[in-house]
């Protein structure tokens, strides 16, 4: 995932090509041991790293029922032991930001505000360092093709978590208006699947695992298509 946003504004294709992906984490070598270091490093780190610390956990080994949905909030709680900061960082919604740079600025704003509130946070050392990580994503063709939404609904239960990540999470970096690939493709049918698109956009990708997201997608598709 390159730093700049990757947008795809091409017309949706007629056939849905199911892709799959795998993510691998890479240490950046950048670390933060206090909030000031976090502020400095976060302001300079590549956007891939910001992305990883919000979304990478979905495809990387990590305990699912996390108390905090991004690594910055978790560090504020477990490393820095600053509850107000952890709560404010935890509420940041990556799907609500216009892009990763905006997301970074939102985080920096919260950190700056907290440093203003509590001077001691300039020098209090965290009990664990924050390790800035970035990731590489390898995308490949699963060879599965869906010609119709019904066919896609049939495929959904067999899709890997990598496919779910690629089409439902990663798509938001590639497509305008933070759309997922399923909605983007359905929009080629003009108004016909507008309701289905609305239901898909109501799935919150930020809470729960990829398995959970997959279950929700299966339910939305099957109940919509059954009614139709």
């Amino acid at each position, binding site marked *: 995932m390159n730093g700049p946003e990757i947008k795809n504004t091409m017309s949706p294709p007629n056939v849905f090509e199911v892709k799959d992906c795998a993510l691998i*984490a890479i*240490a950046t070598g950048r670390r933060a041991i206090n909030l000031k270091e976090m502020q400095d490093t976060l302001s300079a780190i590549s956007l891939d790293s910001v992305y990883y610390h919000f979304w990478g956990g979905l495809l990387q080994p990590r305990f699912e029922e996390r108390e905090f949905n991004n690594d910055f909030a978790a560090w504020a709680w477990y490393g820095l032991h600053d509850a107000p900061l952890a709560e404010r960082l935890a509420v940041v919604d990556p799907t609500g930001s216009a892009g990763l740079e905006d997301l970074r600025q939102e985080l920096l704003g919260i950190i700056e505000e907290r440093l203003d509130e509590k001077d001691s946070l300039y020098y209090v050392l965290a009990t664990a360092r924050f390790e800035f*990580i970035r990731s590489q994503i390898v*995308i*490949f063709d699963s060879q599965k093709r869906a010609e119709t939404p019904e066919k896609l609904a049939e495929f959904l239960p067999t899709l890997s978590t990598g496919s779910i990540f690629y089409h439902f999470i990663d798509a938001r970096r590639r497509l305008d208006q933070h759309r997922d690939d399923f909605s983007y493709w359905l929009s080629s049918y003009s108004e016909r699947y507008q309701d289905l698109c609305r239901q898909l956009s109501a799935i919150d990708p930020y809470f729960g695992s990829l398995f959970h997201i997959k279950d929700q997608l299966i339910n939305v598709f099957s109940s919509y298509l059954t009614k139709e």
Partner: protein
Amino acid sequence: MTNLFDAYANVAGPEVVTHLRQLARPLAGMKVVHVNSTRVGGGVAEILEKLVPLMQELGIDTAWEVIEGNEQFYQCTKGMHNGLQGQHVHIPDDLLAVYEETNRQNFQNLQHPLEEADFVFIHDPQPAPLLSHCANRRGKWVWRCHIDASHPYRPIWKYLRQFVNSYDASIFSLAEFAQSLPHPQYIIPPSIDPLSDKNIELSEQEMNSVFSNFELDPDRPLLVQVSRFDRFKDPIGVIQAYKLVKKYVPAVQLVLAGGSATDDPEGEQVLQEVHENAAGDADIHVLLLPPDAHRTINALQRVSDIVLQKSIKEGFGLTVTEAMWKGKPVIGGNTGGICLQVINYNTGFRVNTPEGAALRIRYLLHHTEKLKEIGNRARAFVRENFLLTRHLREYLTLLNSLYFGCTDRIELN
């Protein structure tokens, strides 16, 4: 799909296996060589034992080579291992000379496969200097560090770094272990093989056999720590914790089961200290098991109530993963990869002292419902994250990444 992958599909899911095949397709026919220093004993050998045939099965021409050395070589590399884990060790120049000479000799034996390989994985410090002899290499070399190198003793790391710098990439189990190096440092936690003798389901009869074989009482609570007799595993701390629990739960029993690896000359001395601390208590069972006692270890973990891994330093802690896979809550040292696996009140408890361990043992023994619930959650956590199939997936991703260029986004056609 072959029988080998059929079996993994049963445990991890068929889509996981399909995923692996697709990731491996661009790598078909490539030559991969893994090199380490022991064929049996220790986590690295256990991983390679299965990873290598699986990579072969996926069409990648994979070989596993083992370097050989004398006692002085292993004495030196044990010192390096301890040094990487932060112990202030001095390795005399004559031992370092043996280390370098041993690698030179081993390179002569391995020259052809190493020069011809598309990818070479060098595991841990023992074979690290091999690359310095391979002037005509055609492939990419990756140094895989399985050790907690988060705070290495600097003189040791400085010495090793001269060999590691020239690699194309390195792999660490956790981001905290990564060091300053002039190449990408990938983060890949290790894994367990659910189909190995150490982890496979056992019959009731086989599980119960350990009670009679080791004179354990099946009706009394059993604590088990499985690990090498190594100071960093803190077996003495485990005995202290057990003694603190014993005051409140007199029925409790403890098993310290340790294997020995051929590259660990210090084990004997630590085992002696363990025996001294356990003397006079018939409920402490110190078992020195042969390297192939996998099913025995499996059974001991399965019949235990709580598994301990009270390490002071830990690379990843595969014994933790194994215990969790068997649905056991783990009380683990607050270090290394244990932090990634043991989540307080969810999959077990992390502790820093024998007192902390004792408190958590008492808590779990008094809350049997909680004990069961935590064990179930631990097993599910391993299924999702720490099985061999996930490990293999990350190796394949890394190979694709190295082969197709280290851009952040690689689209395979």
